């Protein structure tokens, strides 16, 4: 009895390990360099244009949404704000678009890229909840890390990094400042950008126990706290702070209901983004700024979407296309026929490892049938009647090639038939 349990434990273990590693081996063998499509809005032809790799090597296409192909240089001239340095080289600056005229300084002043990826979400990335609260007014060119770290919790602790000890003075000062501003402890979440390689320091946004949002900075060593008024009906899920020298926006605010907002730097006003089909848990989002438009481009691993907006974030036009990288390759089709499922260890949208099962549906029936036939042949060779190995066959039926390989590695034994 226990020997039978032992064999089945090993079979199960073998199958699970195979279902993780064989698909990884397949990726290693057959992965190609198809990246995501690069999608832009051309202020020149007022159409969406894209650059896409469609085959092995360097088979790029430069195309607009109507299907017109361009050579590389023409393509770049269609998106001159992106390739402004080339424009300068090619003597095409200042740029004239309709009645507008842009020199290099004007372009540079308006350029910005904001990114929001699934991995930026707090629940997709493990994070030790200790954050350095930088001096926002460093009175010198560079920011620097303080010798203490902030621990949001029942109070706002500060821990001296040299002594690895609580700094009671700082803790009291900052906790009191928050309380006086109406902050209700404990801190539910802290959002900020931990870096000294940024234009300036915007401090942290702290969510209190009641869901109210506060902005905290360290200014000349002292706390500066401000309540951030959030419109009714918006519950904060996440905030990504992106300090930028344009000083227009301070970052993204994602609501619990999935709506995404931009937050202005000065008044912390929220600007709703109308992004049809956007899923923050699965899609990477980029917002490209230029003197005329803001283009939100977001994609999972199949479809890329773009919404072009005016300077006030009103949508003008939108476009979506299935990317070349999502095209099913023959090897994928064969693979889906070969094995009934994959176990994926790495989720590209998360820093956490996961064990997600992906079933291949009916296509796998072919592989399962072939595996069953081979399993019957193996039983015949070992002199075991199929009726005495029903469970083994059932296992192959459910797990296909993995089960067959497990059966070969841990074959049925006399006395342990099922």
């Amino acid at each position, binding site marked *: 009895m226990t020997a039978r349990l032992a064999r089945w434990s090993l079979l199960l273990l073998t199958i699970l390990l195979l279902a993780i590693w064989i698909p990884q081996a397949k990726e290693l063998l057959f992965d190609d360099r198809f990246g995501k499509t690069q999608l832009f809005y051309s202020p020149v032809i007022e159409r969406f244009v894209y650059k896409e790799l469609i085959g092995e090597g360097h088979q790029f296409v430069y195309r607009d949404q109507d299907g017109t192909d361009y050579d590389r240089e023409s393509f770049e001239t269609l998106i001159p704000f992106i390739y402004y340095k080339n424009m300068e080289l090619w003597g095409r600056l200042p740029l004239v678009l309709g009645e507008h005229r842009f020199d290099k300084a004007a372009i540079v002043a308006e350029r910005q890229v904001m990114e929001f990826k699934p991995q930026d979400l707090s629940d997709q990335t493990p994070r030790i909840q200790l954050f350095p609260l930088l001096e926002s007014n460093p009175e010198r060119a560079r920011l620097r890390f*303080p010798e203490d770290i902030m621990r949001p919790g029942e109070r706002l602790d500060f821990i001296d990094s040299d002594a*690895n000890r609580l700094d009671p003075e700082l803790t009291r000062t900052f906790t009191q400042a928050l309380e006086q501003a109406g902050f209700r402890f404990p801190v539910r979440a802290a959002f900020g950008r931990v870096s000294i390689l940024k234009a300036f320091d915007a401090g942290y946004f702290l969510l209190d126990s009641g869901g109210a949002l506060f902005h905290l900075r360290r200014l000349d060593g002292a706390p500066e706290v401000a309540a951030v008024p959030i419109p009714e009906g918006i519950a904060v899920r996440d905030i990504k702070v992106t300090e930028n020298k344009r000083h227009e926006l301070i970052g993204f605010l994602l609501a619990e209901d999935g709506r995404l907002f931009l937050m202005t730097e000065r008044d912390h006003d929220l600007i709703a983004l109308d992004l049809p089909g956007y899923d923050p848990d699965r899609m990477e989002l980029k917002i490209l700024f230029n003197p005329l438009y803001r283009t939100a481009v977001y994609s999972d691993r199949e479809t890329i979407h773009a919404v072009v907006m005016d300077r006030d974030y009103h949508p003008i036009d939108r476009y979506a296309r299935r990317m070349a990288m999502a095209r099913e390759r023959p090897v994928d089709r064969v693979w889906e026929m070969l094995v009934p499922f994959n176990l994926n260890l790495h989720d590209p949208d998360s820093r956490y490892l*996961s064990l997600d099962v992906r079933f291949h549906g009916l296509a796998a029936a072919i592989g399962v049938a072939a595996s069953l036939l081979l399993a019957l042949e193996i039983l015949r060779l070992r002199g075991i009647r199929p009726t005495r190995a029903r469970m083994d066959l059932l296992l192959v039926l459910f797990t296909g090639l993995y089960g067959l390989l497990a059966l070969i590695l841990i074959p049925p034994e006399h006395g342990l038939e099922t």
Partner: protein
Amino acid sequence: MLGAIILKEWLKIRWVWGAALLVHLGMLVYLLLAMRHQFQVEHSEMIWYWAFELRRLLYTQIQYLPALTGAVIAAAQFGPEMLGGRFRLSLHLPVRGDLLVWCWVGFGALMGGLLALLDGAGLYWIISIWFPREAAESALLTALPWLLGGWVAYFGATLALLEPSRARRPVYAGLTLAFLALLDQGHGYQEYDRIMPQLTGLALLLLPAVILPAHRYRHRG
């Protein structure tokens, strides 16, 4: 009877276990000195920045120690049983074979577990000297798959050592390596947090599995 079974296992592994204890203590002392050195040559706030934001792991010295120890304890326990077929002596004892093997691996796992406990406690303590408790807790969570690697290596080596057929041994070794590789996929801290329960469940399958080679040993043709 249990006392006698444990006595034999202890006699087999005592020197190896003692040596492993010294190696583990030595590695912890090394970790302590390395960490101290780090804080001597760098500013504390920068090290904290690396550790928390850049996710640099400052305690990888002990990463493979549990797996290595697991394999060595298994070799010390089951090598002597396999030499000259001494396993037959045990199979002739008036005890159920499966219970006997479980007692063996139970003891081996316990002794490995004690070293894992030492590693865990040492790691927590060393990290706590220079970092807030959150970092120590995080280090412990990060080290969990490494400690599980000890369990996997111990049981994998046990499978391979108890197995009477030469052809089957590489299969067990391969499965063990595939499992160990699964535990070595992280780059930063706590990346295994969400799959530790599944991986632990998977590793628990090894506990009943060790009966199979023992069964095959007895029932060879």
